[in-house]
């Protein structure tokens, strides 16, 4: 059985990929095994050190989903303003968009742009 997927300018071979996976896995393990073995779970060592302050509750310090990619969304603000105006959630707009796009497609097909 030939598993190689040939495309116009490249290929994908699972066997080759598996060989590389194993190779890099071994390399990774070698690097890992040469690390410092001083880690001891369930001791003071693993607790966060906040200069002697009490640790705030987990719910407070958690990174929330809304905070991730804050910068990206801030940078694309104008684009998202437009999108937000498109997504009104109004049932009638769904049908009106359908009519509009239908008109455009019909114009292209019949009018022959």
């Amino acid at each position, binding site marked *: 059985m030939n598993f190689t997927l040939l495309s116009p300018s490249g290929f994908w071979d699972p066997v080759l990929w598996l060989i590389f996976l194993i190779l890099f896995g071994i390399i990774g393990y070698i690097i890992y095994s040469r690390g410092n073995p001083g880690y001891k779970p369930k001791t003071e060592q693993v607790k966060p050190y906040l200069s002697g302050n009490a640790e705030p509750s987990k719910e407070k310090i958690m990174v929330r989903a809304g905070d991730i990619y804050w910068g990206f969304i801030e940078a694309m603000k104008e684009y998202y303003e437009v999108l*937000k105006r498109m997504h009104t959630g*109004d049932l009638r707009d769904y049908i009106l968009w359908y*009519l509009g796009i239908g008109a455009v497609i019909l114009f292209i097909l019949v009018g022959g742009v």
Partner: protein
Amino acid sequence: MNGDIIAINFPFIVVALLLALGFYTIGFKRNLIKVVIGVEILEGAVNLFLIALGYVKGGYAPIYTLAPKKAVGNMVLPTPQALTLTSIVIGVAVSALMLAFAVNIYRHYGTLDVTKIRRLRG
């Protein structure tokens, strides 16, 4: 002659008017029940269109019992009528389901205003 063309195309003119009316009702009315009525008008338009297509001048209904002699070889193919019936049957199910949803929406939102029924957006 000109009158004839209008007479022949009259059902299709009505279909076009009904389609426009249906889309207007769906697109610009605020009450959810009116939107449902708009869908029903659209359905009526499409059914009328199919029925008008099935009309053949001088043709006979394809019912064999009590058909006159001259109907032989002159019966219309009942496909458009069958399509219309099927579409009506489907329309009943659709309208029943739409109204059921409307009732349930009214219970939870306390309104049938389409501009207020949009908790799902963005």
